[in-house]
């Protein structure tokens, strides 16, 4: 523990404590709460309601191409998180951290996408400060 810079610990703990996911439309029953991370190439990015979703291709352990699809929240929420209709484009190399459906199909719910240049697109947002009124 003493080898880990305190600033990193604070950032990680802070994210765990204050991040607010906003997915509610279809609930949580379909998804395994565990996170997985997959590297791939974007094939499509749909900006729309009730949720935006990204399609990307990745290789499995045998080298076969797997066609993934993973949802984010809706455009209004994603704007709050710094995303736009132009955030992802076909050909982008991405590292996607997501929850995937319990069926094992390549369908997920995005938690974070890291672009090739290191830019992080997150689907969570710190809550606004509580008010006393």
């Amino acid at each position, binding site marked *: 523990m003493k080898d880990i810079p305190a600033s990193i610990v604070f950032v990680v703990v802070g994210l765990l404590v204050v991040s*607010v996911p*906003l997915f*509610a*439309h*279809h*609930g*949580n*029953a*379909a998804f395994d709460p565990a996170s997985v991370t997959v590297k791939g190439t974007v094939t499509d990015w*749909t900006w*729309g*309601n*009730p*949720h935006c*979703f990204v*399609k990307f291709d990745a290789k499995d352990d045998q080298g076969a191409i797997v066609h993934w*699809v993973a*949802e984010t929240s*809706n*455009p*209004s*929420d994603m*704007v*709050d998180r710094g995303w736009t209709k132009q955030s992802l484009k076909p050909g982008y190399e991405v590292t996607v951290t997501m929850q995937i*459906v*319990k*069926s094992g*199909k390549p*369908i997920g719910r995005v938690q974070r996408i890291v672009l090739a240049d290191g830019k992080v697109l997150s689907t969570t*947002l710190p*809550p*606004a400060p*509580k*008010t006393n*009124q």
Partner: protein
Amino acid sequence: MLKRFVASAIAVATLLTVPSPGRAQTAQPAPAPRHDISGIWDPANGRGDGIMGTGAKAMPEDGKPEHQLPYTPLGLATLALHKPGNGARMVHPSEINDPEVVSCDPQGLPRENLYELRTTQILQTPLSVVILYEFDKIWRVIWADGRELEKEHPEPRWFGYSVGKWEDDYTFVVQTNGTDERTWLDKAGRPHSEDLVMTERFHRVSQDRLEWTVIIDDPKMYTKTWVALDKFPMKLLPPTTDVREMLCSNTEFKAYHKAMEFLDPDAK
């Protein structure tokens, strides 16, 4: 060197977090204007506070005994028919029968107040109060011309019929009836009948703060009235705020469901 750096950092942090005598005096909010709830309002505790995915905020469907609603036998039977995607009774997306989720149906009232309550614009005319909701880009008119709320209506409406009156200088009280019982009361699948009377209390606490209360009275479904939204705090946004568009487009809706296979029972 390190000790000196740490000491400096602590000193700076102390200056930033401990209020000085001058800073300790927080400015009092401007008083509320009389008979005026107009403005563009956002959930004061963050936009996520108005989503209420597990049901009405004051009584969420979380399995806690204190949140158990006073259902009539018909209320319980109707509840059992509703399969929500959220809350203690949530089902797999392929089993959800929420009309808004599976068919893009209007949420209607009271649900427009109890799910996805986002940026909300309130306009006032001499005869009415108009509410513009961000979610579904819905508007509703509340008559405020002194009329009484009719007990009978020629037809039910998704958003019912609303009449409001000023209870005092800062509290506008609205009653709504004649709603369409096909809609769910909230995202958790609580039912309502056409006998529902929803009372809303809009209390302007100050210039920049509004509290929104929703009370449910539906003797067919519930043995007594209950509070669904309890002084929900809304903060005033600048009048130039550009409210976002959030519509259920059938084209986008179908594309999303196809991609995510959420209506496919084999996708469990």
